[in-house]
Each structure stands twice: as C-alpha cells, then as structure tokens.
C-alpha cells in the first residue's frame, strides 16, 4: 500500500482572513485557536501539505506598507512582504546597498522570486534559506509588531525564535527589517558549496576603512550562525590579511553539524577557505 506523506490533497480546511491593519492582523493571531500568517505562501502551503491543520490563515497582503522598501541615509527598511524580485529590482536598495540587490538577483528561481518574500523566507525557519544569513551578515534589525507596539531587535535574537513561527508559538509579527547606515555596509557571499554551506561576509566601511566584520554561515547548522569582530583596517589590505582574518573568523564559529551532505570537519575547513576568498574579493572591490 502506498501511503502519501505529503500532498496538496492533505491540506485541511481553514478559515481565511485578510486584515487591513497591523493591529487587526495581530489580534487575529492572538485569538483562540491556531493560525498562521500568509506572506508569499510557498512555505506555508508546503507545510500544510504535510497534514498540519490550523484554524485560520491570516493573509498579510491587505496590510498597507508591509511590502514597502525605503532607503534613507541612516536606515534601509525592507518590508517583510517585499518579494525577492522586488528586492533585486529595487532602485532604492541599489542606490544605498547595491551588494544586496546584486546578490538577490540569484536567490531562488524566477517563480519563487516573484512570490516569495523576505519575511516569509526568514520566518520559515529553513536552515537552507538565504534570508537569515544575509541579514545576519548585514547586522540587520527585525521590526517586531505586537499589541503593545513595535520594537526593533537585532536579527540575531530572531534567529533562535523562527522555528516556532509556523506552529503559532509567537504572537508578534515581523513587519520588516532595518539595516543601519546602509551606504557603509558591504555584502559578499559564496553559495557555490550548497547544500553543504553558504558563507556570507558583511563589512562596515567608513572612509575606506573596515570597522566591523560579520561572518554568517548558512546550511551548516540547524539555524544560521553569525560571528562578528571589530576591526580597523584599510579595505585594500583585506586581501593581504585574508589568511589571518579568515582563520580567526573560522575559529569563532561553533562546530558545524555532520550530516549526509558534509562532515563537520569539511564544513569548518570550507568556512575558512571560502571566507578567505570573500575577503580577497571584498578587498578588491572597495
């Protein structure tokens, strides 16, 4: 007998709500019963196909402003409902943080890019997804909307909470992401070793001097990790110092997992190798 473990025919009936304000969306989330927010839908629909049942699906596409992207000198705000395609094509992002727009051209496939959102990508809690490590490398903030108001928290604080998001374990809503001083941020990534690992290097640069390094690793842990260190170095010297810096950063990362894709020791070694490549690249593209 063939037993289907996963099928669109297994999606259980649910009530659908389309709030028009953040407050209404949060109220629906807090109402008795189980619920989930619907952004682009790709991960939620897949999750429901496994037979998980919820009482309510709360569409977020009726809430104004959630897909907005706004760039200012002090903050780049990307609404949680901004699609990958919108991020890649955004003139605002290109003007202040072109590295992000360039990297996002290659995220997922064209079908997923037009439907998938940055918020959905992060909140899906999938260890292979690129949203969280990219934001970690950029030192981003998450904008959490709750009944009591909106707060900004470091994205690293969100990283530990995302697996609970679908299951109804949170009563707040990630409304967007903020990247401070965006023109000073650089982002480089190497995704060539997927599905073993992805490596994301974020730099803060002021007057051609690197003042901070952040290294985020995806696919090698249950949740992406990020290590950071302050620095005061001419960006042109990054290449020359890449071996030392890469070794020092790789020593800071926790032990990766061993699984069918790669061993922990291979992943750890590759973190150092790829980080060195990224530092060389960053030093040459000041």
């Amino acid at each position: 007998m063939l037993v289907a473990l996963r099928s669109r025919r297994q999606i259980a009936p649910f009530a659908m709500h389309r709030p028009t304000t953040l407050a209404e969306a949060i109220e629906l989330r807090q109402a008795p019963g189980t619920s989930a927010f619907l952004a682009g839908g790709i991960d939620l629909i897949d999750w429901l196909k496994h037979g998980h049942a919820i009482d309510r699906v709360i569409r977020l596409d009726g809430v104004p402003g959630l897909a907005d992207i706004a760039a200012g000198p002090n903050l780049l705000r990307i609404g949680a409902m901004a699609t990958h395609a919108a991020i890649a094509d955004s003139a605002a992002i290109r003007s202040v943080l072109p590295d992000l727009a360039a990297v996002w051209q290659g995220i997922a496939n064209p079908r997923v890019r037009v439907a998938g959102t940055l918020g959905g990508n992060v909140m899906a809690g999938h260890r292979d997804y690129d949203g969280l490590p990219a934001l970690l490398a950029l030192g981003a903030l998450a904008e959490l909307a709750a009944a009591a108001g909106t707060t900004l928290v470091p994205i690293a604080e969100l990283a530990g909470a995302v697996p609970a998001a679908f299951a109804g374990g949170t009563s707040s809503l990630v409304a967007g992401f903020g990247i401070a001083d965006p023109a000073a941020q650089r982002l480089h990534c190497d995704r060539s070793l997927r599905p073993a690992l992805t490596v994301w290097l974020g730099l803060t640069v002021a007057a051609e001097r690197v003042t901070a390094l952040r290294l985020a690793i995806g696919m090698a842990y249950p949740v992406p990790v990020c290590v950071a260190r302050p620095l005061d170095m001419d960006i042109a010297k990054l290449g020359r110092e890449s071996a030392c810096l890469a070794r020092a950063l790789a020593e800071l990362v926790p032990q990766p997992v061993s699984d069918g894709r790669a061993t922990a020791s291979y992943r750890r070694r590759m973190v150092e190798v790829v980080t060195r490549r990224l530092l060389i690249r960053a030093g040459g593209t000041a």
Partner: protein
Amino acid sequence: MSTQLSFRVNGTMHCLTVANELTLADLLRDQLSLTGCKVGCDQAVCGACTVLVDGRPVAACATFAFMAEAADIVTIEGLSSTGRLDPVQQAFLEAGAIQCGYCTAGMVLSVHALLRRCSDPDDATIRAWLEAHVCRCTGYAAILDAVRLAARYLHQEAA
C-alpha cells in the same frame, strides 16, 4: 470554508466559489479542465505547474486559488491564438525541444515571460531562468536552442 473570487483565465472571466484549501493548480485542472498545468513535485521546484499570473511565472501548486483574486492568468491552452502557435511554442516544436512533454507547458510559459522581460537574453540568463524547470528527459541542449530560436522569431515579428 470558502472564498468567492473573480479572475480571468485565458481571456475569459470566471466568478467562482472555491474552498480555501484549494490550490491554483487544482482549480485550473479540476474545475476549469485546463490540464496543461501539470503537477510534478508539488513543491514549487520542478516548474511543470507554471502558469502566468499577471504576466509573471507562478508555481500553481504552491499558490492558493484565493490568491488569484482579480488576476489575469494565462495557461498553455491560452498562449496560442486563432490557431497559430505562439513563437515560443513554434520554436520548441522546430528545435525538437520536447521529449515526454510533461515539463514543456511550464517551460514554454516561463520562456514566454522571460522574452517579454528581456528580448535578447544571453546564455547565462537563459540558463538562470531555466533553473526553475526540471526536464527528466534531460533534453536541455535542444531547449536552449529553442529559446534562442524563439528570441529570433520575436525579433522578426517586431521588425
């Protein structure tokens, strides 16, 4: 639990009440008999279920039907008009880019969207775009030829 929605498919308006849990793929296949929308992986990876929603390629298996409210949808059945194949369909036919055919409808629609967005794509762009599609017959070389041929046909049409 259901939702009433209005949308256009291949130029025809439909007003239907659909179950909330119904996917767009099942709506098109089971209620509108548009079986050119195939379901392969059922998780937005293989590309067989691709349809155009407001001109953009969308995975119908990973889209709830209610998300198509007010949308303009084109399936493979609606691509040709007045008995004449779309240039992309013609190119796939002439280049022999069809083997078992299961992936073809999705690919043709995706390529149609690509060529509307970029009329002269280079090979890297074509390959990146086709990453969204899996052909288990692995006839990719002919498919690349077909895309280049389709681009030429569209240029000739425009000239």
